[in-house]
């Protein structure tokens, strides 16, 4: 049994960290690249969204490297992503690959389901070991998110453009390489200090923009064409509605108590949208409401053909909270030019608006 799993931004590093101590045989697919995208679009249904396509591309490239079991994110939310595993399995079968899907089923089986899955793939390792490797994976995810938050903050202030990103990339590599808590801690400290000590622009007052939307395109820089890095280059500080480590930790605490971990966001969305419409559409509307006043603007990422995010996009202009929103649809396009034009225009617009308010 050789396992594989899709990338989804940096998430694969945390999954690796959980499987390594358990001695599981796995293969990480090559990082998303042009070939991944070509394979993905060739074998996917035409109108399906980019998360489906890139995940399938990862799977195909991993199966070529000998993987026969696939850890797949599922869940019976109201978005079609919950059914993707079945279609992907069928496509791989039609291609002549005999693979077995292993489902995380996060929404129905919760954490226990995931731990059981770890137990299965580790050939019934003792629970003590499973819990400790799970905890190590979560620690890595937290470290990865910390580095990303720091990079997305510091990039706006860098004096010499292009200094933060290489340090950030090295920090991710160092976290990936860390085999124990000590080296993980050392990597976070070393690269955290490096990023914090670059030459900064004096007196720079950056715009603050929140990035929201469908989880996959928010987490994966290949799918969203490095939108946070591009905003950083324009001197903008970005934050996200969603960091996986925060989401898991909150979920661990709230879910067993039967509390909705998104309750603030859902409550804020209530006047405009009263229920889950699948994907992250409900949260997107809520984020706009609670972020007004706290951020200068919001970038809304959505996969092309995504119904939940499309619905959210149509609801947002009617809220009384007046936060500028730029919708960006992510699909097979790999040229950044169009997106950069929009980001530039969006940040110009916000700056001019702020200046006009000040001069009034």
């Amino acid at each position, binding site marked *: 049994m050789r396992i594989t799993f899709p990338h989804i931004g940096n998430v694969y590093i945390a999954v690796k960290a959980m499987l390594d101590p358990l001695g599981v045989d796995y293969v990480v697919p090559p990082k998303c*690249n042009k070939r991944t995208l070509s394979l993905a679009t060739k074998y996917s249904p035409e109108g399906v969204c980019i998360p489906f396509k890139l995940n399938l591309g990862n799977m195909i490239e991993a199966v070529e490297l000998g993987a026969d079991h696939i850890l797949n994110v599922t869940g019976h939310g109201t978005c079609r992503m919950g059914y993707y595993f079945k279609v992907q399995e069928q496509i791989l079968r039609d291609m002549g690959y005999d693979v077995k899907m292993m489902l995380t089923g996060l929404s129905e089986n919760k954490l226990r389901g995931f731990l059981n899955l770890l137990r299965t793939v580790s050939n019934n390792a003792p629970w003590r070991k499973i819990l400790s490797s799970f905890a190590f994976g979560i620690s890595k995810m937290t470290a990865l998110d910390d580095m990303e938050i720091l990079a997305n903050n510091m990039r706006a202030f860098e004096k*010499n453009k292009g200094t933060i990103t290489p340090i950030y990339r090295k920090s991710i590599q160092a976290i990936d390489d860390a085999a124990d808590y000590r080296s993980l801690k050392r990597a976070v400290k070393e690269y955290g200090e490096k990023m914090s000590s670059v030459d900064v622009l004096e007196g720079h007052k950056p715009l603050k923009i929140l990035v929201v939307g469908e989880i996959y395109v928010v987490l994966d820089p290949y799918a969203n064409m490095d939108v946070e890095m591009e905003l950083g280059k324009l001197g903008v500080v970005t934050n996200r509605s969603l960091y996986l480590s925060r989401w898991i930790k909150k979920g661990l605490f709230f879910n067993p108590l039967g509390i909705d971990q998104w309750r603030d966001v859902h409550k804020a969305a209530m006047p405009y949208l009263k229920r889950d419409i699948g994907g992250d559409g409900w949260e997107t509307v809520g984020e706009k409401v609670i972020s007004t006043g706290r951020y200068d603007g919001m970038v809304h990422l959505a996969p092309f053909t995504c119904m939940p995010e499309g619905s959210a996009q149509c609801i947002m202009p009617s809220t009384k909270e007046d936060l500028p929103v730029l919708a960006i649809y992510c699909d097979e*396009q790999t040229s950044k030019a169009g997106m950069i*034009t929009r980001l530039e*225009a969006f940040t*110009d*617009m916000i700056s001019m*608006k702020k200046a*006009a308010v000040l001069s009034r």
Partner: protein
Amino acid sequence: MGKKVFLGIDVGSVTTKCALMDDNMQLIAHRYIPTSGKPIIQIQSLMREISSEIPTGCEIGGAGTTGSARYLAGEIVAADVIKNEITAHAVAATHFYPDVRTILEIGGQDSKIIIIRNGVVTDFGMNTVCAAGTGSFLDHQALRLGISINEFAREAMKSKNPVRIAGRCTVFAESDMIHKQQMGHSTPDILYGLCQALVRNYINNVGLGKTIEKPIIFQGGVAFNQAIVRAFEEELQTEIMVPKHHEIMGAIGAAIIAWENYNATGKKTHFKGFEISDINYETSSFTCQGCPNQCEIAQLKRGDKVMARWGGRCEKWEYISNTKESPEDAAVTG
């Protein structure tokens, strides 16, 4: 020292424009030429022409570039400011029409809508994945019907009973047009039907979720087409204004931004656009082999010196001063 004049250059996908403005922001001269897929050569010839228009005793106080080739153009003429076309169009429109509330802009390859309230941009939209409704598509259809783009509007205005054409997508529009033409509908009716379809597509896609309020101005190359203007007026049931220099509004905006920049900073211009007309620029590209992405990097060289590189997903080649290795070490030149 002489009076200052300001230059704006707008290099679009289909046409290249420039505007020369005095320090009261009055237009002195302008040019409008096709880009013809050779932006560098066209910028050079534009610079040759416009340099003769500078009034005696005046000198360039600042230069700005915009349009999809704004970085290339900015690098070549050493512009003081490089601005995206949405901001440039908004700045130009509010300069001539301070109380404008909606700007419709349709160019060669893209279309935009800009919503302005109290002289400030509050929202904008740009066509996303589809080129239906842009100048290139009109050009293509005019060519297919065997009429020049100049006759297009004149013919379309003769229409009495326009046919309905699907405007969602150029492919549907074209097959619909062919079908109607084979059924024997007259050319003016088909052409005006096409105009209506494009306007519907624009309002439903680019204008999705935007509140279009008066005064509305329509700029960009497609505003030459009277039939599109009429279709907009019928669809929105209101009057649309077309500025006198609608086709060069982007360039005017870039000149105004250069002027504002000069007034704010007082810095001497870097502009050296008039010295470049005989210099040989070379553009080339190579495929970076640094990772599986294999980005196609384009580079601009002046003699042996690399002036700029574009096209990578990461920052590896973007900042010339940060690049230690030469492309030859890591890449295959092409």
